[in-house]
């Protein structure tokens, strides 16, 4: 009984801890002003936030973020799964090296990774371009997706591919008729995960995009720096929606297939 009560308390505390920033964002997005020591704002008016979010700059930033997320998710999934598949097949040493390299892109401070990527992208003449930012985002996205895909392939029966090959299937047929159908859900999850990693990138975008490529996080930072907290809160909510949507989508998908999230 005491254990159940303690678990319930811990769960509630965790929920409050996680949801508080979202709750504050929602309140701030609809508050005209909200200053210390007020517990709650005096008056609400969403119009200023809506009109700020509806400007051409925010809309084009939203489109840029969506395009980057989709492109990096797609390419990152393909690259990450191919690297992971090779790593699992080739052997333990190569697998460990691959995991270490992938893990570095995940744990390295984004600002440090961003500086390196900035130099590299400027070196190929793509600084301040959408393509340059796409290539830069692809690095951490591929890292995340390689780690994810190594886990996926660890439980994938590679003998299916072997038997398919000796039964006459070409590598392409094995991929299209065996691997992709069997990993369909996992590929979808990879696409979403990769898109979300790109969706939240700020440091890399600023460094490589040089302020020319403006994504939603860049616009959000600009709003907050200029003191437009209400519009900033609204943009932050927009930025938080895809992750929430992804969790819902993955939960529904997991329920349909009987798997766990």
């Amino acid at each position: 009984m005491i254990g159940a009560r303690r678990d319930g308390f811990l769960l509630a505390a965790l929920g409050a801890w996680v949801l508080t920033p979202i709750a504050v964002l929602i309140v701030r997005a609809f508050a005209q002003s909200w200053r210390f020591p007020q517990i709650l704002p005096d008056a609400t008016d969403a119009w200023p936030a809506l009109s700020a979010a509806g400007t051409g700059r925010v809309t084009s930033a939203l489109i840029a973020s969506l395009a980057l997320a989709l492109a990096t998710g797609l390419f990152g999934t393909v690259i990450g799964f191919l690297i992971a598949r090779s790593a699992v097949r080739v052997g333990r040493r190569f697998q460990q090296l691959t995991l270490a390299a992938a893990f570095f892109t995940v744990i390295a401070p984004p600002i440090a990774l961003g500086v390196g990527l900035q130099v590299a992208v400027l070196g190929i003449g793509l600084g301040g371009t959408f393509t340059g930012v796409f290539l830069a985002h692809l690095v951490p996205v591929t890292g995340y997706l390689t780690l994810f895909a190594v886990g996926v392939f660890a439980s994938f029966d590679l003998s299916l591919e072997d038997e398919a090959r000796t039964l006459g299937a070409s590598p392409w047929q094995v991929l299209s008729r065996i691997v992709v159908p069997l990993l369909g859900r996992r590929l979808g999850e990879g696409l979403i995960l990769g898109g979300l990693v790109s969706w939240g990138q700020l440091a890399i975008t600023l460094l490589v995009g040089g302020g020319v490529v403006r994504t939603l996080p860049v616009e959000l930072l600009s709003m907050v720096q200029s003191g437009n907290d209400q519009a900033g809160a609204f943009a932050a909510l927009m930025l938080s929606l895809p992750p929430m949507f992804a969790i819902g989508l993955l939960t529904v998908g997991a329920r349909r297939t009987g798997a766990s999230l």
Partner: protein
Amino acid sequence: MTIRNGLELSHAYVPFGEKTGLEDVNLQVARGERVALLGPSGVGKTSLLRAIAGLGKLSSGTVRVDGRDVTAAPPEGRGIVYMHQSPSLFPHVSVLDNVAFPLEVRGVPRSAARAAATELLERVRLRSAALRQPSTLSGGQRHRVALARALAADPAVLLLDEPFASLDPGLRAEVRDAVVDLLERGDGPAVLLVTHDVDEAAGLADRLAVLLQARIAQIGVPAEVLACPRSLAVARFVGLPNLMRGVRDRRAVVTCALGAFDRPGPPGPVVVTARGGALRVRARQGGATIGTVRGLVDRVHGTAVRIDVDGERLLAVPELGLQLEVGASVDVVVDPTSLHVIEEPADGD
């Protein structure tokens, strides 16, 4: 010599990790023939099969299929089908689509491929399961479907990696019968199967190849390998129960615990072997070697007797109706022509 039909492996060296696992393997399996590769765990049997199928590498050597050099060909271009120990049926398609798979990837129209697959399922008595998912099949049924799928590829060579290892004894018989029924002689595929079960190999294969210490230690028809092992290691691996110290004198007379018999060869210590059934035990009548009963062994094929003869522990078959007690003296009768001499000293000699 190159065989025109079937599998020919010449001077094959198979790596095992960073070391060489198998050395200078030479093997020919004709179309319609079944050869069993026997060997202890870890000797490299599976690595050899995978290398033949193109799923692993040969350090050197050549693989020919129906006279064609396929050493550098990809797995799908060799005419060789490799079946895993636990059949890997594709879990996302039906049994019928599993069997139709080899035909469809070769460009056979879907309807024709499914019709051919249905016929093959009929041959393995699983037509009624055509639309089921593989996960709903029993272990034996999965093996039969995998066999039907392998044959749908119309291979020149079929490699079976421990085909019965994952099955319990009852299902083993079912799948073994299916293998025998399905694999035609004549123009059927050359079959190379890996197993460590000597009885199973002897019952199924036309020839046995024993892999020991990185090489093929002996290859021949089952009766020859089991009755006349070329070395003590082969005799031990195939499980010959009666290995006796012997010595051959200058007159070519070999003397062992069971007596003396003529067998040409150089003088010196030898090992004399006899299959379990070659020794018979009867009540004391005289005129035969005397042994002492040490115990009875109940086996699937009948009861055997453990006996001591002049310090050697042997296994023999009792005469029908003979009542035996531990410690009793018995006559041990043996036909000297059934004894085999291995030209090497026994351990400790």
